[in-house]
């Protein structure tokens, strides 16, 4: 059968890998849409045809669940996001994040803290380090974590808080320099998935969710720099 999935933008690369393996292993077909979690929420509320939803946070799936838009008991954490302070320039960010305290940069890119979980986490890190005031006038916000990364990748911002999954593959950074922000500086970024009401009777939807919990998918998820619950 076919299953239509809405996937949080930060999970784009691993999902492509997982989907193609899943198709090979099960014979089901996956149609994926990638985008912002808040945007998907309003689309689902307004009758979007998605059957499974992989969100960038845990609050949006929970909200849908409370509103009766999901299959009861289907919600689970498929990945835990990790935050990294990253620069496209090699050697710019040290492995202790001291570059933040030195404050010699012009622009620090973050995702919108109001709407993106990675943005909210970045703001928590700055607060814990006591740097909220010092960096206030240097913050630039991307509408999503993808855009926050784009500002840094194009060099318009010297550094930024991005998702580790965006700059990490097979156990190392794909380029530039970064500081893996210690987990005690921000609330865990739990990314939850649910089966939506539209996917209730679709065996492929259940199969995909089971597959996401299985060893093949979790290996891919870890290789992209996510943690697991």
């Amino acid at each position, binding site marked *: 059968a076919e299953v239509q999935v809405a996937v949080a933008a930060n999970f784009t690369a691993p999902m492509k890998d997982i989907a193609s393996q899943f198709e090979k292993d099960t014979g089901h077909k996956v149609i994926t849409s990638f985008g*912002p979690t*808040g*945007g998907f*929420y*309003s689309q689902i509320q307004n009758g979007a045809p998605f059957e499974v939803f992989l969100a960038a946070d845990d609050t949006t799936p929970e909200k849908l669940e409370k509103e009766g838009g999901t299959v009861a008991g289907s919600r689970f954490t498929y990945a835990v996001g990790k935050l990294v302070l990253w620069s496209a320039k090699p050697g710019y960010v040290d492995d202790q994040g001291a570059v933040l305290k030195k404050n010699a940069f*012009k*622009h620090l*890119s973050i995702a*919108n803290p*109001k*709407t993106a979980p990675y943005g909210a986490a970045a703001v928590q890190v700055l607060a814990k380090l006591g740097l909220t005031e010092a960096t206030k006038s240097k*913050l*630039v*916000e*991307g*509408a999503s974590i993808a*855009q926050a990364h*784009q*500002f840094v990748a*194009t*060099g*318009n*911002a010297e550094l930024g808080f991005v998702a580790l999954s965006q700059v990490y593959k097979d156990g190392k950074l794909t380029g530039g320099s970064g500081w893996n922000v210690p987990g005690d500086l921000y609330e865990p970024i739990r990314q939850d998935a649910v089966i939506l009401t539209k996917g209730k009777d679709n065996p492929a939807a259940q199969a995909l969710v089971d597959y996401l919990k299985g060893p093949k998918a979790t290996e891919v998820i870890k290789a992209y720099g996510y943690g697991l619950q």
Partner: protein
Amino acid sequence: MPLSEHDLAAIRLTLELASLTTVLLLVVGTPIAWWLARTRSRLKGAIGAVVALPLVLPPTVLGFYLLVTMGPHGPIGQLTQFLGLGTLPFTFAGLVVASVFYSLPFVVQPLQNAFEAIGERPLEVASTLRAGPWDTFFTVVVPLARPGFITAAILGFAHTVGEFGVVLMIGGNIPEKTRTVAVQIFDHVEAMEYAQAHWLAGGMVLFSFLVLFALYSSRRFKAGLS
């Protein structure tokens, strides 16, 4: 008051951006439109096409190229850094530059139509009366093309107010610098603050309707619209 302090700041910023952009567009667009209306050059087609590009290109294309070219490694970015101006993304000046590109056809095309509608005759008469080219332009062309100027200014202003994709891509959402009304609405919707989104979005619909209503119901302006 249903509008927050941030909403009001976004409205103020948007009006400043649109006003400054409109003035610059009239300054830049008038000679381009004049040249396009008068020239017999073989380049006319190419230049006209370049001016019209923002009409058909998605804002993502313009935004992406502006981000790359105005960035520290791009040609415009290297020039502005060389001049000691820093780089343009994330600044109000950057939004103005982007808006001038983005709204250019909305100013050039009505002006070009107005200039073409004047024809050769008034210009010939002016020159037999020994008016110089500048004199002719300001005392003959500008008054005759006045409806075209008004249309161009209104469309340039309104289109800049309605700009979203380009601002989103190069702005960085900084309050009082690059957070315009359109971006503020996007934020409200993304944060599921639908009530606040409604106030601003409804205001935009009303504003745009009134602008276009004024434009279409006034006959004198029709000369400028093709």
